[in-house]
């Protein structure tokens, strides 16, 4: 079994973004997605701090101190980029103007509930950021995450044990092992990494998985 790297998970998610899509990338793993959009597509990346048209990271020494993304990383603007203020950035989010948001998560439930802002660690101050706004406002919510925690517990669960970001919002999930949709019947695997059995994927998942009739192989190119 070949588990995908974080960059490969991001690559796979990027392949599903259609030409012309307006997309918000959550902090963490999703920020890698912008590196892997196929060259023949124009995808406009939005950030909560008012950036539309986020481009690649600047070369060292070329950073503009006034140009960052929601994860506080220095960025560039693409041709056609635009700046709005924070309130309009959330008008865009909450008003349903984003085609898609790609978010990280601690847990996703079989109903599509999302938990990505607080754990049960009382020494870890919670941080909401724009996650609740994105989870409710974007036309489609997709999640990128490791299939299990570092100690092997499932992150795809029957019911979230961490506080919810939003209920019934996640439609698609990209993990290091599989691509899954959240359907009315729960998780449905669309692609699985080569060498992984259905039983093994089920064993790493906290809720029953159905398998799409055309369930295929999850493959990504080797990436540095």
């Amino acid at each position, binding site marked *: 079994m070949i588990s995908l790297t974080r960059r490969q998970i991001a690559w796979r998610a990027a392949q599903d973004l259609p*030409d*012309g899509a307006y997309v918000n990338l959550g902090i963490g793993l999703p920020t890698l997605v912008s590196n892997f959009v196929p060259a023949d597509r124009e995808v406009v990346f939005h950030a909560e701090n008012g950036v*539309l048209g986020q481009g690649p990271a600047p070369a060292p020494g070329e950073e503009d101190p006034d140009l960052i993304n929601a994860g506080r990383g220095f960025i560039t603007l693409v041709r*056609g*980029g*635009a700046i709005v203020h924070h309130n309009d950035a959330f008008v865009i989010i*909450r*008003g*349903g*103007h984003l085609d898609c948001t790609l978010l990280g998560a601690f847990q996703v439930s079989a109903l599509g509930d999302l938990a990505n802002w607080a754990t049960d660690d009382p020494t870890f101050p919670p941080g909401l950021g724009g996650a609740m706004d994105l989870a409710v406002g974007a036309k489609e919510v997709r999640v990128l995450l490791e299939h299990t925690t570092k100690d092997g517990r499932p992150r795809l669960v029957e019911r979230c044990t961490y506080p919810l970001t939003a209920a019934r919002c996640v439609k698609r999930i990209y993990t290091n092992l599989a691509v899954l949709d959240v359907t009315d019947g729960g998780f449905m695997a669309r692609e699985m990494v080569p060498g992984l059995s259905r039983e093994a994927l089920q064993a790493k998942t906290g809720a029953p998985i159905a398998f799409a009739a055309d369930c295929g192989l999850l493959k990504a190119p080797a990436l540095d």
Partner: protein
Amino acid sequence: MIDKRVSSLAEAVSGVKDGATVLLAGFGSVGEPVELIEALHDTGVRDLVVVANNAGLGDTGLARLIGSGRVRKIICSFPRTADPHCFDAAYRAGKLELELVPQGTLSERIRAGGAGIAAFYTRVSAGTEVANGKEVRQFAGQPHVLEEAIRGDLALIRAETGDRWGNLTYRLSARNFNPVMAMAADLTVAQVSQFVELGSIDPDHVHTPGIFVDRIVAVPRSHSA
């Protein structure tokens, strides 16, 4: 590649259905997308609900839509213009329903529609007949009226420049309702005085980012009413 430019007014307004709610920008005739409205008229669409500040002037644009009996209801703040004869005739004949809304509340309801806000409380109109039938609630000891969002199936707007992504700039007071209406419809169509190259608008000077715009058509000023 994103290219929202279309080559004709007819293409710009294609696909609008009878019964649609249509947001029409402009304040008087300044910033009014008059050629788009005329093109919408020429599609033959009818039974429209129009949201606009005014109710038409003379015989063009919104006045023509009303004069031709295409508008079932108008939601506006100020139907009295210099020459509202199309509105007056339809209104007096009982053929046009009028919902009169304070101008700021009208704008704010449209903004709410674009911003994912279902409803809001404002002091404006509390204690007046405009608030009849509306929920009133006290905040800080003052009565506030509950106002619900307005969204359009279509918004027709007008800008000065636009690029192929739909980024727009406006000129002076022609900005008016255009940015807020651009945000609040399922299909937003802009007429611009001129197309400009992608990247030629300073990112700090974009007034309406392309994410709010679906189609854009050039109507040079010299051809404009």
